[in-house]
């Protein structure tokens, strides 16, 4: 699977007011791009536009993949809410995509993913019987099961406690390696750790922020990463 780059360029308006104007966001193929911004700044709208989802905004512009092929059908989506179906067990939720397309699920791959994410003993449990962290791991397994080259993450870790969040960040970085990932977040520390590239969204404009030389995912206690996170926080507060 070779992951294409993705570019979004254009303007989005809600009624008469511009949510963002003439922005250009590019995601490098096979890399993690973090989009950081305060709540309600329009970053989720950007992600939803790339995903081809309803936004309620009028968008003038284009979303394109670097290989020239359509993006639709090549995107996997993961949100802050794990979006697990309460009436399906873990295995059923991981294989949801096949179920919704009316295909037979690859049960071997499904079970391997469940095992890889440490959920083997929970495979027959319903989501209600799992912890928040476990549920988000199921959501990650479901995302991986889709085998899409472009993965869009809308604050998937922000509802988790600090320790689980860091574990999930590492698990996601490891399992999604090689894919084009867009991570939308309001957490500067998360953007500092996870981003091969980091973009800051403020006042309807986008700025690329230079990242540390070390490769993502960066260690939690790395001084350079910590300083970068602090810088991002400062810029976020000034915005």
């Amino acid at each position, binding site marked *: 699977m070779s992951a294409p780059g993705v570019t979004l360029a254009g303007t989005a308006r809600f009624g008469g007011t511009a949510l963002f104007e003439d922005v250009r966001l590019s995601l490098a193929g096979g890399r993690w791009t973090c989009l950081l911004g305060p709540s309600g700044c329009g970053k989720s709208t950007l992600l939803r536009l790339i995903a*081809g989802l309803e936004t309620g905004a009028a968008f003038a512009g284009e979303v394109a993949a670097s290989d020239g092929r359509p993006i639709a059908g090549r995107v996997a989506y993961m*949100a802050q809410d794990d979006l697990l*179906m309460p*009436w399906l067990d873990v295995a059923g939720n991981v294989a949801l*995509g096949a179920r919704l*397309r009316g295909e037979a699920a690859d049960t071997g791959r499904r079970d391997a993913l469940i095992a890889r994410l440490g959920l083997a003993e929970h495979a027959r449990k319903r989501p209600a019987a799992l912890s928040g962290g476990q549920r988000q791991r199921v959501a990650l397994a479901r995302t991986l099961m889709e085998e899409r080259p472009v993965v869009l993450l809308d604050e998937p870790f922000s509802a988790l406690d600090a320790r689980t969040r860091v574990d999930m960040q590492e698990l996601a970085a490891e399992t999604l390696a090689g894919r084009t990932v867009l991570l939308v977040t309001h957490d500067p520390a998360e953007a500092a750790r996870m981003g091969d590239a980091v973009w800051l969204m403020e006042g309807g404009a986008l700025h690329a922020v230079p990242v540390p030389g070390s490769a993502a995912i960066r260690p939690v206690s790395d001084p350079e990463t910590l300083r970068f996170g602090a810088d991002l926080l400062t810029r976020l507060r000034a915005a």
Partner: protein
Amino acid sequence: MTVALLAAWQAAVWLFALPPFILPGPLRVLAALRDNAGLIAHHAAITAAEVALGLVLGVALGAATAIGLAASPLARALLRPALVATQALPVFALAPILTLWLGYGLASKVLMAVLIIYFPVTSAFFDGLMRTPRGWLDLGRTMGASPRRLMWRVRVPAAVPALASGLRLAAVYAPIGAVIGEWVGAAGGLGYLMLLANGRAKTDLMFAALLVLAALTLALYWAVNRGCDRLTARMA
């Protein structure tokens, strides 16, 4: 509570020396129930059959309508105003017409029950189908689900609790429909028996039939409620 009520009932009959054709005491009603057990059972079976058929048909039609409306904006635009308008017409007023068209048999009562539960079931289920959490729909769309599969594998299961509340209402309404139908014109059923007993001043038999009707409705509600609880638990 029940015992106190029964005691108060019997006491009122003694105290005010009410004649049995106005208000028979509970003992007298029980005696009528015992003496006419075969007769009451025969009519109860007819009413139960009407209610059961009406419930199954009404729920099936209501659920199908709700899914149709939820699936098609065109159907919503065309049918929803009409559906609401039909509710301005009291279903009770249709009973004589249904009896005229369908006769004194089972069909007119079943249709009364269907008509009376159709709207609550449709309305409750439709509301549930239109309130599928947006995140699930988004997820389904990125996964390439067709609208049809999204309906059957996400929207319908997610709306089961809403359907269950419609079913609970239907269980209480269906016997009302059947009995109204029987009052207007029937050859059997508890409603028919009540009218018959009333006409012959057998008030104790009338009360006995009423008692059985209430028991039937409660049993139906209990069974449906239990089924709904299980179904909802499986979906949540």
